[in-house]
């Protein structure tokens, strides 16, 4: 079929494809977002008071520290694990289908249930201490507010469990598109496993890794239910501060201010990833 003006159609096509989603988001979230931003800068005592109160909350800086610590430690660990899992799945292991299913299962578990089960594992008379008991080890207070390091470790393990599947399935979906022959060719030429991983597999997975990294990081800034279930108020996270102000202290103004901080930090990280892992524009996997 010959279009009347192919070049114009070509130029308009991406916009036509984007338009529905952009309109949808604007119609649904546009006004709520604007009014939330507005709230952060207004209030009974004026806009700056919100930000002063936000910073003055005794746990604010602790929550900033905890959030950065968690994101910095968790995300690399999670990615290594997810890449390893995706690679393992590519090998033709026995019971591969079963492994894959079990590895995706945590996705189905809500934050709340995840917090619940990890609490039942780490709590004083929980499963972990029961299991250690068989080896004659005395119960350990993993989650006591005095043992900050085991508390952090517990949160880390729970988050690793809860969200690694998310990264893995994006990687697996992306990996489907990588022609096996590249890897095999490299193998024929004597490339070691690590060389192939670095020069063949990972570069080909770049689009998936980029997206997984961005989504996972943004979602990491939003999750706190599991951490709260495990540590009570003793490991505050930034997103928890939004809820504290909105839910606990009934102050949407300061809550919006905190929300904007979360937004800012997420965006800086996400845009950072976008540029760091920049894809040659418009080039598909095979185009050159």
């Amino acid at each position, binding site marked *: 079929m010959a279009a009347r003006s192919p070049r114009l159609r070509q130029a308009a*096509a991406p916009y036509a494809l*984007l338009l*529905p*989603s952009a309109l949808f*988001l604007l119609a*649904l979230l546009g006004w709520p*977002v604007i009014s*939330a931003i507005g*709230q952060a800068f207004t209030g009974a005592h004026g806009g700056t008071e919100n930000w002063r109160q936000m910073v003055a909350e005794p746990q604010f800086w602790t929550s900033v520290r905890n959030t950065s610590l968690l994101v910095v430690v968790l995300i690399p660990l999670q990615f290594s*694990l997810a890449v390893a899992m995706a*690679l*393992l*799945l590519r090998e*033709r292991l026995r019971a591969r289908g079963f*492994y894959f299913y*079990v*590895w*995706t*299962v*945590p*996705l*189905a578990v*809500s934050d*709340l*249930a995840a917090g*619940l*089960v990890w609490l*039942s*594992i780490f709590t004083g*008379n929980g499963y972990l201490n029961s299991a250690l008991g068989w080896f004659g080890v005395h119960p350990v207070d993993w989650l006591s507010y005095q043992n900050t390091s085991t508390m952090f470790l517990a949160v880390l393990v729970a988050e690793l*469990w809860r969200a690694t*599947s998310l990264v893995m399935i994006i990687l*697996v979906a*992306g990996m*489907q*598109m*990588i*022609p*096996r*022959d590249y890897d095999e060719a490299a*193998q024929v030429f*004597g490339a070691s496993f690590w060389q192939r991983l670095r020069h063949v597999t990972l570069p*080909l997975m770049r689009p*998936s890794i*980029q997206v997984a990294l961005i*989504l996972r990081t943004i979602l990491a800034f*939003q999750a706190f239910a599991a951490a709260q279930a495990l540590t009570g108020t003793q490991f505050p996270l930034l*997103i928890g501060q*939004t809820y504290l102000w*909105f*839910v606990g202290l009934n102050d949407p103004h300061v809550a919006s201010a905190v*929300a*904007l901080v*979360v937004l800012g930090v997420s965006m800086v990280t*996400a845009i950072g990833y*976008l540029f760091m892992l920049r894809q040659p524009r*418009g080039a*598909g*996997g*095979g185009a050159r």
Partner: protein
Amino acid sequence: MTADAPPRPPAVAAGPLPPVNRRPLRRRRLVRAARQAAAILVTLFMGVPVYLITLSAFSTRAELNRFPKALWPRGVSAGTMRAFLGSTGVVPSFVNSIEVGLTTLLVSLLIGAPAGYAIARYAFRGHDAYQVFLLVTRSLPVVVLSIPLATMFLRLGIYDSVVAVALVHAALALPTTVLITASVFISVPAELEEAALIFGGTRFAAFRKVVLPLSIPGVAASSIFTFVLSWNEVLAAAILTLNNRTLPAQVLTSLPYSPIEYRFAGGFAMVVPSLLFILIMRRYLTNMWGATIR
């Protein structure tokens, strides 16, 4: 992870018949065993908590309070589960949740996948700006949007309906849908599509016959996200509904205040439908395993 052995240069041996070098073979077998072991370890890590939720959901209250705890079924009872499933509103809210989940899926795929395709295939002004725009909508904690959202739906007259919740969930899921489908579309070789164009197909036909089938894994991955997100989402669902609640709004909100045995029963009951959904979608996700796409 274990490394594959690099193939060694054939051993040069004196004599007419070089002895068979068994080391590479032995190494290969070792590597296989190590991989299998790693897979089993990961499976234990991912599986044990799920096993424990299941175990706890069917344990008696006395059993849950006991220490040391048994890691195998002891004091099994479906009593709490039955009481939980029989409590007011569980059945209708379950149906509402399924409706919301599937509607969300449909809406977000219908408008998200084309956008993902555009991002992957076209270079255009606003390419990055659009992506940033998507991420902004996802990065703002929903809780601060809740009151304006509810007010908006009340004015539109679709408050307290499945549609309202599904629309909000679709908006929440859209960024993941767009980005994940884009990450897969970008890997579908453009030549395949061009070939289809050269052979006289329209762009749409090329998309439908070439790109779409190849992008099924991406669509499957993003629909798993979307469904699970919608299935477990509490806050928007709780604020936007009153008499037509979804399961999380009906149940999850009250669980933190319920006795421990109820929390496990509820947590488990909520997991089952998402597990079934993943079980179905898993097949499409690994649709291409082993297929060589040139």
